């Protein structure tokens, strides 16, 4: 079982990345749960969601101590890094955040998601860069599953799909190099 917390600013695609991840897990026949933190949110505010992917039935959908944190910006990196399980993984969007975790029992990957997304063609695909990095680091879902979900989601929008695929692969490579 792996518990993933995705956090960032509203509009960075945190919630849709979480849904992608859950869908991909489901495609592989695994048990999944997706829980968005819903509060009195507003545009430009914070957004986060918990995704659990497991071989067995998921009892608690809560993710208070995640195995993996995906932090899309500085504030969420600093807010949630302390919660990550000892020995866990933190993927941080190095384009707009520092990478100092303040603890040495978690592995921090600096992924310049915004820069890589802009290279791929659209800064909005930064979430897919992080999905790529997640696949490379944890292998929790297969690349193919995420790509299939992408193609399903953007059916009829081949240009958007292509940008997202590029971003995804850039994330894969960036994480593999570290």
């Amino acid at each position, binding site marked *: 079982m792996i518990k993933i917390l995705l956090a960032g600013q509203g509009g960075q695609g945190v919630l849709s990345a979480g849904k992608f991840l*859950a869908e991909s897990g489901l495609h592989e026949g695994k048990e999944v749960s*997706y829980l968005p933190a*819903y509060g009195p949110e507003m545009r430009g505010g914070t957004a986060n969601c918990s995704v659990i992917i497991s071989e067995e039935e998921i*009892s*608690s*959908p809560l993710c*208070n101590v995640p195995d993996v944190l995906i932090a899309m910006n500085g504030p969420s990196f600093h807010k949630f890094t302390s919660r990550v399980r000892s020995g866990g993984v933190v993927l941080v969007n190095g384009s707009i955040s520092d990478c100092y975790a303040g603890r040495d029992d978690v592995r921090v990957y600096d992924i310049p998601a915004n820069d890589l997304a802009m290279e791929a063609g659209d800064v909005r695909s930064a979430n897919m860069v992080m999905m790529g990095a997640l696949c490379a680091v944890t292998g929790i879902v297969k690349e193919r599953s995420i790509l299939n979900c992408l193609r399903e989601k953007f059916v009829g929008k081949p240009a958007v799909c292509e940008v997202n695929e590029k971003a995804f692969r850039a994330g894969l490579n960036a994480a593999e190099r570290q």
Partner: protein
Amino acid sequence: MAKILLHGTEAICEGAIRNGCRAFFGYPITPQNEVPEYMSVKMPQLGGVFVQAESEVAAINMVYGAAGAGIRAMTSSSSPGISLKQEGISYIACARIPCVIVNIMRAGPGLGGILPAQGDYFQATKGGGHGDYHLIVLAPSSVQEACDFTYKAFDLADRYRVPVMLLADGMIGQLMEPVELPPMRELWQIPEKPWATSGHFGKDRRILNSLIIKPEDLEPHIAQMQKTYEEIYQKERRADCYKTEDAELILTAYGTVARICKSAVNTLRKMGIKAGCIRPLTLYPFPDDTYRACAEKAQTKAFLSVELSLGQMVEDVKLSVEGKKPVYFYGRTGGNVPDEEEIVRAAQDALSKAEGRR
């Protein structure tokens, strides 16, 4: 059929639609806005009716009318909205009209907060509105159950001519999980309602009314309702037992909390404490037989009710246990949800208190 990933609120809608719900009336409130959103798309497609009413009071009375005409009708809201609907619910119960009411509970009292809570247990199971009546109250704890229980709610409502409430906390409403949808039921498969005010067409005159002014008429009417509640109590009590066979400590919870309790049971067992969990699926009728059976076992030392409230279901647990074993309580309010470690600590406390009593 393959499983698909669904939002809790969407699963509720699909459960309703697939069992013949063709009328939805609601008024927006977080955290259940996705229910009316989904229904506003689906109802017109299926030839049904969707109305965003001017208020909760209007919405429940629209359900009264539509369900009275024999249509399977539903409304949904969250705690403060359900309070507004109580007058209508009492009228519907008295007129013996089947319908489904969804309450995705948020933190109260008052306008409260929008995060998950279970503070409406008393309201749902002990009346809510005025007068002697009950609802059948179902408590799902997964997205799959949210779908299945809503589906079942329509059949229960029709069978007993009693309104059914689906009582879920905000987390069940917002969670996404894989769901296997039940098959779509055709409308002709739903049994005819020989009491519905569906037009004269040469039939005898039918009246649905909640004003029964003569005491000699009202008392037998209520007695008849009571007979139905008795039958419901005998036939419909349901609970899910998890590792209770050899348990010395019985945790009990419903909804989201029950899932966290299940995790806690596994952790406690790893620590050498034999714990188990009773999860009521029906909150009314309350599955007192399940609790009593556990209370009578020699190895059971204590019960611990875990709720997102200040202690509501725990009263029914105590009534069921009948003083045979100590019953303790642990709760959080305000939209906070306890994590596994918190429940494990509460369980250890409860057990040591119970052992100290001896």
